[in-house]
Each structure stands twice: as C-alpha cells, then as structure tokens.
C-alpha cells in the first residue's frame, strides 16, 4: 500500500517536469501545424476576388490573412474537381483521365511499388541479418555506399533498359524497377532482424524446421509491426511522388502528377491561390483517410508483434 503511494507520487512529480516540457513543445508544434492547415482550408473557401481584391474604404487590400468576409464558397473545390484531369496522347487521340482514374492509377502504383519494396527489403534484411556469411557484410556496406552516392543523369539509361526489357510504361515494370533494397527500409529490417535472439531459430531448427518456414512462420511474424510500418511509409511516399510515374508510366497519370499539373495550369479560371490549394486538398484527401484508417491498424499490429528488446 505504502509503496504504491510512493510510486504514484514519484510518477506525478516527474510527469510534472519532464512531460510538461515535452507537452509544451508538442503543443507549439501542433499549433503551427493547425494554424497552417486552418489557413489553407480557410483560403480554399474564399473566392479569389476576396483573396486578392477585397476592398476596404474603396481601396483594394485583399483578404489573405483573415476569415472570409463575403461568405463561404465551395466553388474552388468544384472547379478543382472539374479541371483535375490529365490528358495522355494515344496515337491520334488524346485520352482524358478524370480524378477517379488518376486515383486508381495512384493506388496501383503506390500499392504495387510499396509491396515490392517492402518484400524485397524484408527478404534482403532477413538474409543479411540472420545469415552470417561474409557476403552479407558486403551487401550491407554496399547499401550504405549507394545511399551516399548521388547518381547523376542515369534516367535516360534506365528508360533505355526498361524499354529493351519491354517493361517501360507498364505497372509490373515499375513495380520491378522500384523493388530495390538500396534504401532505409532495408536498414530498418536489418536492425529489426538483428535484434531477434538466435535462440528462436535454433529451437525451431532442432524441431526440424526448414529455413523457409523458419523465416515465414517464426521470424517474419515477429516483425509484422515493422513490416506494416514500412509498408505504410513506402505507400505514402509513392503516393505523393509524381516525378517517377511521370517518366516511367506516362500512359497512367497518377493523382500526384495531376496535382503537379494543376498547380501550373494556364487555365485562367483556376490559376489562382484559393483554387490551387483546393486542388491540393482534394488530392490529399484519400491519403489522409488512408492514414487515419491504417494508423489504427498499425497500433494493433505493433502490439501483436511485440518482441522484447
């Protein structure tokens, strides 16, 4: 009884010092983020006439900083939705991809690439961390070197290789091309698998388990939390990337590319800050929803894959 009270007291006092300090920092951080996002949403519901040309006492002052004064308008979203298309040239015809088609392309691109990069990094991380061959060390060092080495102007040669393998401008092609382990994910898996004690495998080995089933049934399930985290990270970064799909799958415009184009549109009706921001918000919506859903899943997985340190 006495001890319990003591613990509680200690806990409370340290919460006061340490936790409050961090909480303050975090609150400031959250505030800056909230204000920016609030401003963004606020701007998207203003008309451009108000944003740029709001008048006070007969003089144009614009209203960039304050709440809408001439009412809320959803017109920017309507315009963004309407103009959020990409045109792709196919032989003699131009094909228009609407926003849903772009989301589908984005999903195919991000899901496929995230899967391939996660699987490849997982497998390589497993192989290099769990098998103490010399070669494993070389692979690890090699990954570190390539991460530090900025490669210049290799895009044309990558396109040429992809074209000669007949995988340029196809989804399976881009999945294969992105399925590389020269990245941080590999290092994360490597560290994760290094942490798992050898006893796990030894015990299984004595039971006569083959290496494949050891990996799949014993070790990988322990790392499921990391797997899903890496997958989500990869998925999100692929979703927001427009340059790679623009170059390697030009016939399948993704939403990030649609947004990039939307940002630089010459169409007068939408070439203004409120509508542009509305366009970005529209594009960000699915990924924010995805994050909100997966965020919960993530926590579950992490507790399932609980491993002692």
């Amino acid at each position, binding site marked *: 009884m006495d001890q319990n009270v003591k613990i509680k007291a200690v806990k409370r006092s340290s919460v006061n010092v340490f936790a409050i300090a961090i909480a303050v920092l975090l609150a400031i951080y959250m505030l800056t983020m909230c204000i920016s996002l609030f401003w963004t949403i606020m701007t998207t519901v203003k008309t451009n*006439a108000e944003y740029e040309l709001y008048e006070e006492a007969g*003089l*144009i002052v614009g209203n960039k900083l304050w709440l809408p004064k001439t009412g809320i308008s959803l017109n920017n979203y309507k315009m963004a939705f309407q103009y959020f298309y990409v045109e792709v040239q196919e032989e*003699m015809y131009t094909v228009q991809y*609407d926003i849903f088609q772009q989301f589908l392309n984005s999903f*195919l691109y991000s*899901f496929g690439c995230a899967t391939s990069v996660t699987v490849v990094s997982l497998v390589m991380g497993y192989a290099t961390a769990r098998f103490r061959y010399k070669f494993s060390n070389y692979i690890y060092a090699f990954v570190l070197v390539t991460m530090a080495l900025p490669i210049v102007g290799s895009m044309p040669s990558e396109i040429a290789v992809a074209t000669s393998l007949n995988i340029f401008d196809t989804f399976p092609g881009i999945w294969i091309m992105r399925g590389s382990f020269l990245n941080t994910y590999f290092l994360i898996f490597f560290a994760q698998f290094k942490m798992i004690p050898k006893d796990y495998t030894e015990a299984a080995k004595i039971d006569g388990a083959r290496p494949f089933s050891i990996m799949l049934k014993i070790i990988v399930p322990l790392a499921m939390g990391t797997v899903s985290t890496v997958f989500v990270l990869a998925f999100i970064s692929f979703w927001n990337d427009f340059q790679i799909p623009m170059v390697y799958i030009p016939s399948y415009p993704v939403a990030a590319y649609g947004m990039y184009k939307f940002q*630089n549109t*010459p169409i007068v009706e939408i070439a203004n800050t409120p509508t542009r921001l509305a366009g970005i918000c529209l594009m960000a919506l699915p990924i924010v929803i995805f994050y909100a859903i997966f965020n919960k899943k993530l926590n579950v997985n992490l507790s399932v894959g609980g491993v002692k340190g």
Partner: protein
Amino acid sequence: MKNKKICAVIATLLMSVIAIGSFSSCGKKIKKDDGYDPTKANISVATYNGGVGYQWLEDAARRFEKKYENATHFEEGRKGVKISVDKDKHIYTGQNLSTSALTKDIYFTEGVDYYEFVNANKVADISDVITGSLSQYGETGTIEDKLDTSFKSFLTAKDGKYYMVPFYDAFYGFVYDVDLFEEEGFYYDKEGDFLALRDESQRETFQKNKANGPDGVHGTYDDGLPATYDQFKALLDQIVAKSYIPFCYSGSYNDYVSKACRAFIVDYEGYDAFRLNYTFDGKAKLVKEIKDNGTVVTEEVVITQKNGYELQRQAGKYYALKMQEDIFGTVKYIGGIWNAFDYTVAQSEFIKSKYMSERYAMLVEGIWWENEATPTFTDLETQRGEKKESRRFGFLPMPKVNASLAGPQTMLSANRSFGFINKNAQNMELAKEFMRFLHTDAEMSKFNAKTSISRSLKYEVTSEDAKTATYFGKELIKMRKQANVVYPYSSLQMVINNSAAFTESAWFMNSSVEGVTLNNPFDAFKNGTADAKEYFNGLYTYQKLMWSSLK
C-alpha cells in the same frame, strides 16, 4: 492467428491489384476529340503555353486550313488539311521534350538546348524550308533571309543544316504605367522639366513639348522618357516625391531584376561589342580604370578565345551593375521593404495597385507579362468594370550614360525559344508547309499583334495588324522596329561544350570578391556583400580563374 489473417488480406489485395493492373487499360477513360479528321491530311502542333499563349497558333491553323481546304496533294485520297493544336504548359518545355519521346509533329517551345535536340536525332532537317522559296505566299525571299547572321551560324554549326527556326523575342526590362506617367507628369519636356498631360484636349501640345527621349529623335515612341542615367534617377526621385513607388518586382525571383538590368549592358555596348561575348573575336573597349568620381577610363584590347575573360571589363557591365546598385541596392525605390513576391504576384500587385493605397509606377518583367497577368485583369474587370484594353502600359527604353550617346536601342533576347518538326512527323510534307506558312511576313505580323511579342526574325508588322494589338503591344512594335536585337547564341565549340559557363546567369553574374564567390548581384547589394565596383572587378577575377578549366 491474427497474423495469418493479415497475411491473407494482404495477399488477396495484392492479387486483386495485379489483376486490376493488368486490365486497367480497359478502365473508364474519356476519349477527347482532338479534331483528327480521317477525310483530311492531319498534323498535330504543340506549344508551351506560357506568356505567349496558344491562341496565335489556333488562329494560324484555321487560316492555313482555309488556304488549303481543297488541297489533295498532302495525302492520297484526302482533301483538305487538319491542324490540331495542343497546349500544355507543363509538358511542352524544351527541357521536358529533350528527355521524352516526341508525340506531336511540330513544336514551338522555349528553354531549348539546340544541340542536345539535334544530336538526339529527334528533329527533322528543315533546311529546305529555311532556304526554300516562299513564292506560293507571294514572297520573293526565303526564311533564311529573315534570320540574323548570328542565328545562321549557330543553327548550322554542326553540319550546315537547319533543324530549328527561332521562335520569339524575350526581352526583360521595365514596364511603365503610361496612365500614371501622363497624369502625374513623369515625362520630360525639352527643357528637362517634368511634363504632365493636364487634359486630353491638350494631347497634341503635350506630345510636341516632350523631350526627344533616349533615341534623340523627336516624334518617336520614346519621347519624353528619361534619356540619360541621371534623368532616370531624377525621375525615380520625382516618383517617390509624389508618393508613388517606382518599382514593383519579384523578390522570390529577383533574377528578373538582374536580367532587366542586363539591358543596360546590351544597350551601352551595342550589337557588335555585345556579340563579342559569343564570338570572342574582335576588338573591345575595356575598362582600364574607374576613377573615384565614377569616370571610366577605357582601353582597346583584341579579344580571342585565349583571353575571352577580358570581356568582363566591358564598361557596359560596370554601368549596369552601378545602375542596379543605385536603383535596387536599397529599399528607397521599391516601397520601403524587400518583398517576397513571386512573379505572378508582382504582376498582380502592379496592376491592382491602381486601386490600392500605394501605386507602383513600373514593373520589372519580361514583355510577355500582360498575357500572364490575364487572370488579374479579368478579376479586376469583374470587380471594377475596368477592361484590360483600357489600361495603357509601355516598355521603357534604356536611358544612356550621357546625352551624347543618344540613339536606337540594342536589346537582348533570352529564353532560347525555337520551333521544330518531329523527325517522325506523320505527314512531313504538310508539317513543312505549315512551317513555311507560319514564317511568312503576314503570319509573323499577326503573331506579333496577337501576342505583343515579336518573332526573332526580320519582318514588318502591318499597320492593319498593329491596330489589333494592345497599347503595350503597339508600343513594343514601335520599339522593336527601331531596335537592334542581339541573340545570345554562339557557334564556337568552346562555348557549346562549356554551355554552363556561358549561360547568362553564369557569364554575367559569377563574381569573386575577396575570396567570396557571388552569383547574384541583387542579393550582394541587398546584403551589403559587395558594391557595384567590387562586383564588377570580381567578374574579371572569377572568369580569369575559371578560363583555364574550360574544355
């Protein structure tokens, strides 16, 4: 258990993604009618829809189609022609096109690395178009006759063949608000006093009383505008005194200011001396000493490829830096604060400042600005009922160092814009004919009137077309007619292979001041890193150091 479930879910998802992926080409897409006409001969034309816009191309295409509506020789069994115009601001930049496959037949774009394209074997040899007759359009000469000599040598330097044709002139400088200048009397009269237009009925007297302007001739477009540096600075003080802000500029893209000030160099040096920066062959007048009172002493030096860096001592470069420092080195002439405008914001602020508490007199921009600023004009029309056409703007001719140098302008066209034909054009004969058509005097005149921007070839704008131009466009047409235009292209192996060292941003801006390397005079003056004289001396120091590293 749970893990298995997750694995199963992921596996199912993966399978479905692969399935959808393989069939996604069957997904719902809307086929847009480009206007491909199976009964006619077709080509597609694309343009970078920047400040020049695309409407000029649509118009020209319709005229061409009309002219050849009964032609049967372009494709067997088809009568008439169809030109589809595609405009896409982002895809059709020179840089994008150089890395991707060409899907259209003809392109007009900017930022083109000519030799990169030519060597990539993507563009058609159009020598026959350039050197061939235009008699079918009632002209006696060829397109080649309309090219500046510098273009001829540049375009043919590889193998004597032409692969592209120059597109439009990109001049940077100062746009001034004619309405404000007239109302507030920012013009000079013959006595050197400021002159305003009090009443529209006195316009004739007003015009008559205006000073001669930088060209030294009365009755021309530049009458009443500052003729010398001193007059220019006095004008800026006058603008401030009347509670206006002399300049609106883009703080985020402050290289616009440096580009505009480069016009001082070009105009001071003139065509031949400025071209030395690209030919490295000839005699140059270079600064020997800058005295404390600002007097510049020059000497004559023979320039070759061995001592090309000596050109950094060209007096024009000093004068330009000095002007940039005097005007943009403090916040006196830019509204009391360094702004962070993006260039579209700068345009919009300039235009709408007429109705704001402080009005700008001039804008630092390129001549295509009016087209880019269309959204602001449109909004302003909705709100204030004032049409774009009713605003009057002009493009300020560069004043001279002193009155004795009065004469026509020399202007620098940047942006590297070209037109070319895809090597694999679906109908080469038609594509070439359309190219010829676009480069007739009549078509270039229409282009100029429509866009306000001149083509980089020799031709005259007809008075009929000129009438359809905006006020700004009309002013530019008059200015361009008198001006010498320099193009920054070189056919020298040394320049082509070291293009990074000779881009305008490197050649005119890299400077080494006391071991500190600078690349942005605007920032250097703003931050007090160097003054104009130091920056100028540093140009020489830097290029002399780097000269031996050229390949």
